[in-house]
């Protein structure tokens, strides 16, 4: 893949991004810009693969038959904003001053975070093992973040946007409130300060994990078998989480919070595997509550729900 990407990345960088950065007087950041071009291209490939693989599967074996896919359109926008790097870039610029100041101040006072490799240097010789351990830790954190997104009324006020999609498809994974994205990114940034970051060499495995998350949201009627359902989050497992009356509601009713590995739900008693599927969405949508149909309306309504929750009212 690099043989294909490198000339394209170099061309786009040298004929577009680098001259632009020079013109703006931002030469100090050209190396970051070069890396960003790579990530955007990978995101583009990811989106093409999503369409090429999951769209035919949704047409072949849908869980739900839809007369129109119009409601899916906005989720496409969310996905493009995420996977092509726009939202991650905004989040980076918002969080960077904070993480930078924290890291710099701590180190000037002699404190240096302890990374996984400091604890177990042998990981330098086993990059795949290092990747898997980081992935498990990140997924474990993802599980608990997700549980709190449902358990805390104010966080559910934001996270509800993700669950308000009643035509859930492989595009739904990135449909989130921006403040919800910011909070999650902030938690992972603090984690990165303390425990280090996974090796950046394994780009394709990282891409595959994101595609698994898209698959989990897809409208594809497939199951991974008794063992497989317990090893990797399947579309069925995650659709149960999004089902009205099964997994979407705030509080004790919710289930199946895992992002990649259901082991966390099994260990902490929140796994459901064989319930019948329900329509996706949030219960109050059945009585007419709107979560908005446009990007900015959805973001605004999320903030209004948050305001109510912070006043102690039901979001």
């Amino acid at each position, binding site marked *: 893949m690099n043989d294909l990407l490198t000339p394209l990345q170099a061309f786009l960088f040298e004929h577009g991004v680098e001259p632009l950065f*020079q013109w703006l007087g931002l030469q100090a950041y050209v190396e970051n810009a070069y890396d960003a071009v790579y990530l955007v291209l990978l995101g583009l490939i990811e989106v093409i693969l999503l369409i090429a693989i999951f769209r035919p599967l949704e047409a072949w074996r849908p869980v739900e038959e839809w007369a129109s896919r119009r409601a899916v359109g906005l989720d496409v926008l969310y996905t493009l904003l995420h996977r092509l790097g726009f939202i991650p870039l905004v989040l980076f610029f918002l969080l960077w001053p904070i993480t930078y100041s924290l890291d710099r101040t701590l180190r000037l006072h002699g404190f240096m975070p302890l990374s996984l490799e400091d604890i177990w240097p042998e990981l330098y010789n086993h990059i795949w093992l290092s990747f898997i351990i980081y992935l498990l830790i990140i997924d474990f954190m993802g599980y608990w973040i997700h549980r709190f997104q449902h358990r805390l009324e104010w966080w559910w006020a934001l996270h509800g946007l993700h669950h308000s999609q009643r035509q859930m498809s492989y595009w739904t994974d990135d449909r989130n409130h921006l403040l919800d994205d910011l909070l999650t990114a902030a938690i992972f940034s603090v984690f990165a300060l303390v425990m280090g970051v996974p090796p950046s060499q394994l780009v394709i495995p990282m891409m595959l994990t994101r595609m698994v998350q898209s698959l989990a949201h897809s409208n594809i009627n497939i199951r991974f078998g008794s063992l497989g359902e317990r090893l990797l989050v399947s579309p069925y497992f995650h659709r149960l989480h999004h089902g009205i009356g099964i997994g979407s509601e705030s509080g004790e009713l919710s289930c199946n919070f895992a992002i990649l590995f259901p082991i966390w739900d099994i260990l902490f008693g929140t796994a459901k595997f064989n319930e019948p599927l329900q329509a996706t969405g949030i219960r109050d949508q059945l009585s007419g509550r709107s979560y908005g149909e446009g990007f900015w309306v959805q973001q605004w309504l999320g903030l209004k729900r948050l305001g109510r929750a912070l006043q102690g009212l039901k979001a």
Partner: protein
Amino acid sequence: MRKLFFILLLSFCAPLTYAEVTVVLNSGDGTISLVDRHTYQPIKHFYVGKEPHHLMSLPDNSALIVADAVSNDLVFLNPTTGEIEKRIARISDPYQIGFSPDKKWFVANSLRLDRVDIYRATDFSLVARIPLSSMPSHLAFNQDSSMVFITLQGSHQLAAIDLKTQKVAWIIPVGNTPAGIIMTPDNQHLLIGVMGDNGINVVDWRQARIIKHIATGVGAHNFMPLGDQHHILISNRGADTISLIDTQTLSLTHTFPVPGGPDDMEVSEDSKELWVTCRWLREVRVINLTNDQVTHVIPVGRSPHGLFFISHAGRQ
């Protein structure tokens, strides 16, 4: 027959060794590419740590040190074979590194966290941690090791640190986005590769002032002496060229093209061959300096940055 069998067995079991390797740091994917210095064939590619950017040999050439900025460690390699020998952990965010000529100090710039750390070179114990304004990038020493000079890429300055007191002696504006820095062989001037000003600013370090600008090309970036105590090469990363500078007249001798964002360089000890990392193309190019022609293009990893081979030209 049995003897022949054992000889064959041993030959298969023995580790492959090469007379000399070129070590290439791939900052983007945290790996090292080893290239046979004489056949130009890639030998090996292995993980070293998170964001290795720069490397330099110990003063006695007994080891090559790789600075892993995000892993917070220094990795010691055999300078001839490229094999990892040991790792010193808990060295905070080392980006660009250097030993003072008197072998007393080891200086590490933290580009990301705006800081310079001074270590005792004998045991790598921290002596001073000096916060600076923005993005300490490259460094150079004067010949008596009393000062270290640091380019500040983000705040467009040059800082001088007194190594005896470990205090900042002075800071001056030095042009838009300074990067590479090198002392001229006569110890009179500092040459600063100023990326945003497309050339070199020459600084009289005793007077702490710029005395001359030498236009070389867009994104003037990093230096490497030719080894004749007279000429120095500079890579112009944006212009995709390399320029040769006469350090006695402080003037441009000539410029030749090298595509793909030429960055760090290494010159053979006979000064006839140049190896250069082409940052944007995942390549190292080898150039015959007698006619400026590219003789070899060697594929390496993502964002190749520092490179080294032990039979290099003198550093002046």
